[in-house]
């Protein structure tokens, strides 16, 4: 396999960036969900018809 | 005098009077261009070769300085709301502001460019070409700048953000502007083709900017 370091660098960086994206999105989702639950516990008076997007 | 002309005069007057920024833009241009040789070195041949590009990039950067004041002032003192309620067409308002901005922030710099070209050892032909291309191209920078100003009106440090948004969009004007100048100097390269394409960009942005700018201002208020 010629030019192995270049291939490893390219595929490695790709794996790293896609992995980072996955971690970031899932962490962000969990964090926002937790924050939403905390707020809802604190203020039950949210409007009945569900909130706007 | 029509409302359109009155708006242009207002924009120019506001930029020229104290704290207006037109003078600062000009001084920034002088400073940027004179700093380049300290980095690149005093080699006259090199300076002559990169001179047109230095002048063009200097103009591009200097014209970004006043963007946050372009519509930011209207947002702060309620002037923008009064313009909307007046029934004046918003694209015309943006066009007037962009023309005023070019007259105050663009033209002085373009007229200073040939003078500075001398210290960059540009030949008279190059000086003429640079001035001509800048005259035809800088209005496009003012138009695209107006879109940037409208998008970031009312935002803290909107000016810097506007510069970031505007630069990618002004790459084509820069490319064809400098290419036209090099075309005028070196014979094999074409001059007219890039020059005309740049003029096309100026016209293209003179149509796109007022529409996009007006929408950005109105929706930014919402």
């Amino acid at each position, binding site marked *: 396999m*010629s030019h192995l370091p270049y291939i490893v660098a*390219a595929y490695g960086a790709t794996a790293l960036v896609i992995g980072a994206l996955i971690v970031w999105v899932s962490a962000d*989702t969990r964090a926002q969900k937790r924050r939403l639950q905390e*707020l809802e516990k604190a*203020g039950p008076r949210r409007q009945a018809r569900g909130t706007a997007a | 005098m029509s409302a359109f002309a009155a708006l242009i005069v207002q924009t120019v007057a506001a930029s020229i009077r104290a704290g207006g920024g037109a003078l600062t833009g000009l001084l920034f241009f002088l400073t940027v261009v004179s700093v380049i040789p300290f980095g690149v070195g005093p080699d006259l041949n090199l300076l002559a070769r990169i001179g047109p590009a230095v002048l063009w990039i200097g103009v591009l950067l200097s014209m970004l300085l006043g963007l946050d004041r372009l519509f930011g002032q209207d947002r702060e003192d309620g002037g923008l709301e009064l313009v909307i309620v007046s029934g004046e067409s918003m694209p015309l308002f943006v066009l007037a502001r962009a023309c005023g901005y070019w007259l105050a922030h663009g033209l002085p710099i373009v007229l200073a460019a040939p003078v500075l070209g001398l210290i960059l050892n540009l030949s008279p032909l190059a000086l003429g070409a640079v001035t001509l291309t800048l005259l035809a191209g800088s209005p496009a920078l003012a138009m695209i700048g107006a879109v940037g100003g409208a998008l970031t009106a009312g935002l803290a440090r909107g000016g810097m953000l506007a510069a970031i948004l505007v630069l990618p*969009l002004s790459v084509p004007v820069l490319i064809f502007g400098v290419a036209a100048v090099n075309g005028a100097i070196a014979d094999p390269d074409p001059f007219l083709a890039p020059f005309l394409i740049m003029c096309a960009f100026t016209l293209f942005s003179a149509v796109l900017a007022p529409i996009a700018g007006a929408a950005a201002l109105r929706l*930014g208020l919402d």
Partner: protein
Amino acid sequence: MGVVSSLANPTRFLSWSSRLLPIVSVLAALTLAVGVYWSLFVAPPDYQQGDSVRIMFIHVPAAYLAMFCYVVMAAAALGTLVWRHPLADVSARAAAPIGAAFTFLALFTGSVWGKPMWGAWWVWDARLTSVLVLFIMYLGLIALWRAFDDPSRGAKVAAILILVGFINIPVIKFSVDWWNTLHQPASIVRMDGPTIDPSMLWPLLVMIAGYTLTFIALHLAAMRAEIYRRRARTTEMLIAARPASTAVRPTEAAATGAPPHTAH
């Protein structure tokens, strides 16, 4: 438009996307696994570039995704401005960082791939340069979104910038290509070479499919996160602010204030 608007309800989006997300993620992972194996070990090396051509299998899909993502955002921008679709801004805002990440990947893998051929980490090749400008536009958009504290206001202004950018992309591409031919150093080897023979085309198509599925999965997940972020923000505002004002029956004469409404 019935389907699109029925999906518009964030709550319904959350429910069907939670079912779809795992499926798309698994599909994406499988496709990528097959694609990577095929690209690294099955596809033949190039007679000129040797094995470094295998980098093409991750560079081309990344560059394609960089562009595909901007198209998705342009559609979302139209959704925000023209159809006032409530999820449009959520979709555009969720897509931008993903698009920026894949644009960065396209630049990185492009320069790594170019190093053995051109001997330099960066060569102002027409396509790479256009992708660089696209990268700056992505960052500019993300900066503009973050500059607005209230997401609903930033939505429309960002949508305008997306559309202005979208109109300019072909213009920039044309200018950079023309600019590249002007300064054409003789030794540039074209990135994608003559027509790709099938033994290389198939792994490339599989990789593009894998990348697209990955993008869809990431985009769905990022949209869910954005919806939760906005709900948290709205709940926070509701707790802080007074309950909504209602127009009570006016004290005298004919103005027809609506009858007192409970907060329906």
